[in-house]
């Protein structure tokens, strides 16, 4: 592999040819702010927040889209770079609602983080602001286009991860906007509600409806687990607040799916909280189910199974295990069937 030597903030760095300045800086331990760049999506250099100073270059360079060159001298936080970033943030918030107190993304908003880092409190530009209606007509994704900074990550995620191409930029200039076809709502579009767009959005423009009002981002405990629906084996984080499951978030370290999920994995988890969940054992008495204690139910089961086994033999019992349950649960069901009931009558729905 061809290697390239350059210096970043005076530090000598060697990286493979073709590496972007942003990634080279990252490897050298310098973090560069970015809003439109994300690993796994194509680089478009749209937000310009990642600009750096390259000695000899005519202007500041978008580090997410520019490759390193031999002998390059890069400054990631020079005064002119800092000034440019402040100006970019100033321009971005000129037309961005500053309702951060109640914004769902608060705590995970990249725009807010960078404004904090660069000391941009309010915009020096006073002008027209968008007043788009907030789209809440589907049960999964809230779209507040007033908070959109046109970084385009949602457009690329929809196209490059899901391959659905539901949304794209439309209109021009101040009126530029990310829309589904005909600027209709998502429910009218070919959207598959995979929520990839929500998972990459750096601001409060796209948020999970199910999580609205359920907790601030910094209050959530995230537990990495494996999806309980199909056999792909996607990983994601379960978001928990005060012992209650409130949502699912992508975990980019997932070995198979990365950030990608589908409607079921990202939004179908709420069956866990369904009020129809069974919470206590039930025993049928005269055709009606009555609540029972665990001990009562398990005693009845043990007595009945013992009696039937004694009367009719072990093969009068059969167990149906579950392709939805864990390996450990399945192992115990077959062990119970074989070792305790004395039969190999155990199966699960692999064949049905």
């Amino acid at each position, binding site marked *: 592999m061809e290697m390239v030597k350059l210096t970043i903030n005076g530090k000598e760095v060697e990286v493979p040819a073709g590496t972007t300045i942003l990634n080279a800086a990252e490897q050298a331990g310098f973090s560069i702010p970015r809003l439109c760049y994300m690993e796994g999506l194509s680089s478009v250099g749209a937000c310009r927040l990642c600009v750096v100073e390259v000695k000899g270059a005519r202007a500041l360079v978008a580090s997410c889209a520019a490759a390193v060159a031999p002998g390059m001298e890069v400054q990631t936080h020079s005064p002119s770079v800092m000034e440019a970033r402040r100006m970019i943030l100033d321009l971005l918030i000129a037309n961005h609602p500053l309702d951060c107190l109640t914004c769902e993304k608060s705590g995970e908003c990249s725009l807010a983080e960078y404004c904090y880092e660069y000391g941009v409190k309010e915009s020096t530009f006073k002008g027209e602001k968008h007043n788009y209606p907030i789209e809440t007509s589907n049960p999964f994704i809230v779209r507040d286009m007033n908070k959109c900074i046109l970084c385009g990550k949602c457009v690329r995620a929809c196209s490059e991860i899901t391959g659905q191409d539901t949304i794209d930029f439309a209109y021009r200039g101040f009126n530029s906007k990310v829309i589904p076809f005909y600027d209709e709502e998502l429910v009218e579009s070919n959207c598959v509600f995979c929520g990839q767009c929500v998972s990459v959005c750096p601001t409060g423009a796209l948020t999970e409806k199910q999580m609205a009002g359920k907790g601030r981002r910094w209050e959530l405990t995230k537990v990495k687990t494996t999806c309980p629906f199909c056999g*792909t084996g996607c990983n994601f984080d379960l978001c928990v607040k005060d012992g209650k499951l409130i949502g699912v978030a992508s975990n980019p370290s997932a070995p198979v799916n990365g950030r*990608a999920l589908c409607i079921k994995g990202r939004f179908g988890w709420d069956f866990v909280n369904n009020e129809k969940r069974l919470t206590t054992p039930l025993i049928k008495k005269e055709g009606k189910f009555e609540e029972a204690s665990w001990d009562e139910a398990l005693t009845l089961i043990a007595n009945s199974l013992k009696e039937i086994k004694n009367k009719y033999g072990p093969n009068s019992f059969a167990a149906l295990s579950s392709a*939805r349950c864990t*390996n*450990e649960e399945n*192992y*115990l069901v077959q062990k119970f069937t074989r070792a305790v009931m*004395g039969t190999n009558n155990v199966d699960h729905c692999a*064949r049905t």
Partner: protein
Amino acid sequence: MTNSINEITTDAQLMLLIGTNTTEAHPVIGYKMRQAKRNGAKLIVVDPRRIDLAEEADYWLRIKSGTDIPFLNGLMHIILKEGLHDKNFVETRCENFEALESTVKNYTPDYVSKLTGISEEDLYAVARLYATTDRAMIFYTLGITEHICGTQNVMSIANLAMLTGHLGRPGTGVNPIRGQNNVQGACDMGALPNVFSGYQPVINEEARKKFEKAWGVSLPDKVGLMIPQMFDAANSGEVKAMYILGENPVLTDPNSNHIRKGLDKLEFLVVQELFLTETAEYADVILPAASFAETNGTFTSTERRVQRVRKAIEPVPGQTNWQTIMAMSAKMGYPMEYNSPEEIWNEMASLSPAMAGINYERLEAKGMQWPCPSLDHPGTPCLHGTSFSRGKGLFQGIDHIPPQEMPDEEYPFLLNTGRILQHYNVTTPYSTGIQSMWSEEYSEFNPADAAKLGVETGDKIKVTSRRGSITARIKVTDRVPPGMLWMSFHYAESPTNAITSEGLDPITKTGEYKVCAVRIEKA
């Protein structure tokens, strides 16, 4: 899967999909297929329905339902005729080639085209493309297995992959994408009537002795009953008691009236479930189950990857399922003493050579793919590198086996069934958001048939087979060919499996969910 999911985007030059609606049933794998296609890989879709990926495919072959064997034989006929097979692979890695050769000789393009409805031109093009592409992956799901000839369908796919040397290397392989999150794992764990964990046969004395010693009991040496046989035995009175964990056969198994009758006849039924399901209604005792979010453990995905499941919240019923099974066992006089799922895994791994090298610590980062026989083994992303499990790959000469029940004058439409994107079997109807948008069945019906019957999208129809009648709304769409009705099985109000076929693959006992004959009327 013989190979791994990520090879779709990193290695495959061609994807041949047969009987898999991947973007709906396994969406994240479907995304990867689209990405690969858009990066230059070829995509061939063989499906009677115009599924989403058909729109992007280089070739979409609208195969007639139940003609997979002639189609695959037809491809092999052309490949052999044109000498495009991998002679070296066939000679060194396989045996019984003559049987295959003499069978596929009869499957001329002309004959196959008539049976399958696929043009000769497309048969030639696809056969050449698949055979001459270096790294080609075949994917299939239940469109292949849910036929009375499911086993033969799978063997035909294996024939094709072996004939062309598309096995044992990254970006190749025979890749069934498995349905449920842990259907692979449930098999691996021995929740099957013929094997212990790690596919060790119960009739093998050595294996049985090993488990007898570990478990301290004597174990039965006869193969047990498969699900359909269990319900037959319940109906005939041989099976008297059942324990059903996390399954709803009344809604998901074929010919559900037979299931209901069987459950009704049992003397004692225990169901452990999240919800009061149609199956649980028949129980004498219902035990509340804990969900995936409430337990520690592992699932094994379709690519044989064992991954951690981690407890995020306390179990809603107060205890997890493994604890319940232990308590039940203790009451029966056989205490199981595990303090955690990890201890259960460790016992299983110590008894199962294929998984012996996997433990929770090694699973932490990215999970592991079995076979993994020892702690220094890295796991196996791609199977059959230098030899097959049995040594040489065995070609089988396989002839066409038509579906058990085809449309006739009385029942003129073919009913095909499957999953839709938004639902997963019978759990997602308990998701408030999903259910609010997709709350009832919309069966797919071709515009030409709809015009004849005088029905439009949203109208209700009555669907009758020899097993019974159900009603459902329809969606008029050319996704289905004329003569076909396609239904999902997610909705209790339109219990599709009340009318599906009694036909079973005699080897696997898998139901023929994909083909039966029905009559359709306005409801």
